[in-house]
């Protein structure tokens, strides 16, 4: 079965091509490329990726404008129907601004843009995005962000932890995130947001391949569905 995936490009996205390459490389099928002004999604999509970058120049707040764009209304509707959605970096910011995921991504506590490969702990492999990893596995994935400082109130954090929705945690402090949270999934298990860039770590010759299993997990979940 060929997978029908799509990568959304906003004005200011800059990881959309990397995301498309990662999806094509792992699935063997070229993803569709969608534009922010499209009000409707193509029929029969079974995977949507929101890439990293600086959509709309990060005006107002990172991800704020993109989350109100025409295509995001269609993405929200698709997510609510159960279509898997992966948001990386700016894509994670968009997902929180669109209220598909709780919390917010604030300016890094250091005030600095952080661009380096960091160790991440896979907190759960009971998700459609992480089933190919071992629980507790430490993987190395690049981060490149200015606003990656995850914030949510204590009650929300406790709920996320208790319900197994914290998927990735920085294995060492990175950007000031509450409880070192690097990636979370929604309660329904079909929307994952993460600041680190798995699409930049799919080939050993290009900075490591620890991100590959995320795409393999997600593609495998579709094939087994």
């Amino acid at each position, binding site marked *: 079965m060929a997978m029908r995936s799509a990568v959304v490009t906003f004005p200011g996205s800059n990881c959309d091509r990397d995301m498309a390459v990662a999806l094509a490389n792992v699935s063997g099928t070229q993803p569709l490329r969608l534009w922010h002004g499209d009000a409707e999604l193509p029929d029969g999509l079974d995977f949507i990726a929101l890439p990293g970058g600086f959509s709309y120049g990060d005006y*107002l*707040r990172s991800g*704020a404008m993109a989350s*109100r764009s025409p295509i995001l209304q269609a993405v929200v509707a698709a997510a609510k129907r159960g279509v898997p959605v992966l948001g990386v970096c700016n894509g994670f910011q968009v997902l*929180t*601004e669109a209220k598909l995921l*709780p*919390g*917010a991504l*604030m*300016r*890094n*506590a*250091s*005030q600095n843009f952080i661009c380096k490969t960091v160790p991440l702990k896979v907190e759960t492999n009971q998700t459609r995005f992480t089933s190919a990893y071992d629980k507790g596995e430490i993987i190395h994935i690049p981060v490149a962000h200015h606003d990656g*400082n995850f*914030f*949510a109130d204590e009650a929300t954090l406790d709920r996320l932890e208790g319900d197994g929705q914290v998927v990735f945690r920085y294995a060492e402090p990175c950007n*000031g995130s509450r409880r070192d949270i690097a990636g979370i999934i929604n309660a329904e298990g079909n929307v994952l947001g993460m600041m680190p860039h798995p699409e930049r770590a799919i080939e050993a010759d290009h900075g490591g391949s620890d991100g590959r299993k995320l795409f393999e997990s997600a593609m495998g979940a579709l094939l087994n569905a």
Partner: protein
Amino acid sequence: MKVRILVRLKPGVLDPQGRAVHHSLEGLGFDGVEDVRIGRLIELDVADNTTDERIDQMCQQLLANMVIEDYAIEKLSASEAA
């Protein structure tokens, strides 16, 4: 009608930007600054019949992120707006 929206981080939400500015003020020799918090001022020019409810909706749906921010609405009189 001119309306000013003041968007601020909620109390208790750490403001790294404010802290850096606080540190810089101290570095410049300004003693006695207890705290610095940075917010955002948004000025709207809206139709005179725009209701408070509408302005509230603008704040909640876009201008503020209610997870981390509060907002205050100030309507300017004609003389203030001039």
